[in-house]
């Protein structure tokens, strides 16, 4: 394909509406995470959180294909997934603060953000915990012929957990409409994926399940959008699961106070380079004249306000009533 052709094809990938949505969601997540960092440090939110700033392209490029009937299962680093899947910033932030107005009434916290009405089956504090759950959602979709697709987000660290293997195998033999999206940010806590994972690429493991496996640049939201889009399409058409490995990086450490001595100087600077996903998308939209600088800064500004309001909403919301300790354990008992 000639360069011009590529550019044209590229430009056609995203509708104007999608472009705005993607840009908006990526910035929403980034600003949300920045607020979380601030709120965690100054004590207005919970004592810790695992933020996803730097990894926005994966959550957003993926969820851009999903509707409210589709499902996601998320991880301990799940704020971005929740937002991309349509979560409300106010209730998400309030949850982070353990407030009654939170999406889980304050009972879940950062590790357990969920919104079933939006198809977000929830963040999971157990590494790998969401993978079998995703198979179950996929099974429901398959049996009820709802057409829904489930995306299971998980990290490079989770890919060595036994349930990764079990879930991929089950999804493969049952041809479940599940897409396994691995966010390879190179580390599981403080352990390097190059050490912990025997495979050269995590996507190499797909062959063991006879399903498509691809490794892509997870900082490039357009690439994520395209590749995961194809996998979602495949799943929706009844052709079964895929494994997509998105190589990315986290701007923070594992948690907010991690000094990250395992990162090289170069890695510490990654978010200042063109690999930083929002910058990358900005140059893309600029190059393809999809959004103007003005439009983008208007979006930035409105999000700044929304997130600030969300933080205030969280801070000003009441804590749950003491009796809430005992409710929601059972439907009936």
């Amino acid at each position, binding site marked *: 394909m000639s360069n011009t052709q590529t550019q044209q094809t590229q430009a056609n990938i995203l509708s104007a509406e999608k472009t705005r949505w993607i840009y908006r969601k990526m910035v929403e997540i980034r600003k949300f995470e920045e607020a979380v960092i601030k709120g965690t440090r100054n004590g207005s939110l919970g004592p810790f959180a695992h933020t996803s700033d730097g990894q926005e392209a994966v959550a957003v490029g993926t969820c851009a294909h999903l509707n409210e009937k589709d*499902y996601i*299962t998320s991880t301990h680093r799940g704020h971005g997934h929740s937002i991309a899947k349509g979560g409300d910033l106010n209730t998400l932030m309030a949850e982070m603060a353990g407030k009654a107005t*939170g*999406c*889980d*009434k*304050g*009972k*879940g916290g950062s590790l*357990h953000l*969920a*919104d*079933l*009405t939006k198809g977000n*089956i*929830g963040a*999971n*504090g*157990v590494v790998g*915990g969401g*993978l*079998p*759950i*995703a*198979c*179950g*959602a*996929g*099974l*429901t*979709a398959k*049996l*009820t012929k709802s057409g829904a697709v489930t995306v299971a987000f998980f990290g490079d660290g989770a890919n060595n957990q*036994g*349930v990764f*293997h*079990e*879930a991929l*195998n*089950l999804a493969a*033999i*049952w041809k479940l409409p599940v897409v396994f999206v691995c966010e390879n940010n190179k580390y599981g806590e403080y352990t390097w994926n190059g050490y912990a994972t025997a495979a050269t690429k995590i996507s190499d493991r797909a062959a063991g399940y006879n399903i498509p496996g691809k490794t892509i640049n997870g900082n490039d939201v357009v690439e994520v959008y395209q590749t995961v889009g194809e996998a979602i399409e495949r799943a929706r058409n009844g052709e079964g699961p895929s494994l997509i490995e998105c190589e990315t990086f986290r701007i923070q450490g594992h948690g907010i106070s991690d000094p990250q001595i395992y990162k090289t100087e170069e890695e510490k600077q990654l978010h200042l380079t063109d690999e930083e996903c929002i910058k990358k998308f900005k140059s893309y939209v600029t190059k393809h004249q999809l959004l103007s600088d003005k439009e983008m800064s208007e979006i930035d500004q409105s999000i700044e306000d929304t997130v600030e309001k969300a933080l205030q909403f969280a801070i000003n919301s009441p804590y749950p009533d003491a009796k809430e300790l005992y*409710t*929601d*354990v*059972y*439907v*009936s*008992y």
Partner: protein
Amino acid sequence: MSRQITTVQALNEAIKLAMRADERVIVMGEDVVGGTGLPHLEEQNIEAVGGAFRVTKGCSVEFGRERVLDTPISENTIVGTGVGAAITGLRPIVEVMFNDFLGYCLDAVMNQAAKFRYMYGGKANVPLVVRMPFGAGYGAGAQHSQTLYSMVTSVPGLKVVVPSSPYDAKGLLLAAVEDNDPVIFFESISLYGLKGEVPEGYYTIPLGKAEIKRAGSDVTIVAIGNMVQRALQAAEQLAAKGIDAEVVDPRTLSPLDEDTILASVEKTNRLVIVDESNPRCSAAADIAAIVQEKAFDNLDAPIKRVNAPHTPVPFSKPLEDLYTPSAENIIRAVAEVVNDESIIPV
């Protein structure tokens, strides 16, 4: 006399009735069909086995392999898939072939099924039933004979059912499938072949209600699962010695029907608890702790627990026979609480 069927048949009937009543009910587990994918079986709609203990026999034939699913051997994902399916609208009945494999699937049971509703602020329902055969007595050794309902009872968010007869097995399983919370359903392997009267139709037994299996006035014997049968045998022998035992079957350990147990103790003033679990942190200990607290003034003797010993389950038949609480063990405990050694068989 009306129809007598085995516990396996009663459970099988319950599953089929549940599947007929509600198409959201599905069955999954290792070998619940058997032979899935083999053309020579599928073409004729033949199942290879219908469950290791034949509890799901005929289900795939009637309801099809879409709703009755053989799984790979991967317990955590089997149960976890059940959780995901339940939370999104199905009502799965999952079979874990032996409760010992809780070793592999505890995460799905304890960290996922049990906690979803609470940690998502009451927004999730997990109408899941996980069936787990349990117990010693058939020479399967340490890793296939444990009794783990106590462990599961300790987990908030789960309901725990342990039927003691074919009749109860059917009614409780139907209630479990109707229930909107995750239910772990423990099936005593040693009761699978037991026959009893079971109506043909659909009926449920409420979760959280104990049943007095034998009324009596001298001592209360709370017995769980297969131990109810042993307690009833012991009660017969005790009756011959002039001791009138009341046998209470909690039927579900979570919720626990404290009221029925306490009312019985109020009447008899003496309590023996029979439980095939190992003793430490067991259901027997749990019930003893509750009763001593709530019926302190009603107790004329210490509560005695009859448990398996604090050892793994031995393979050797004579050792295994000693391992499992027997009618004689129960009588000995009763002798202590009624303070009458003369009733112990010689």
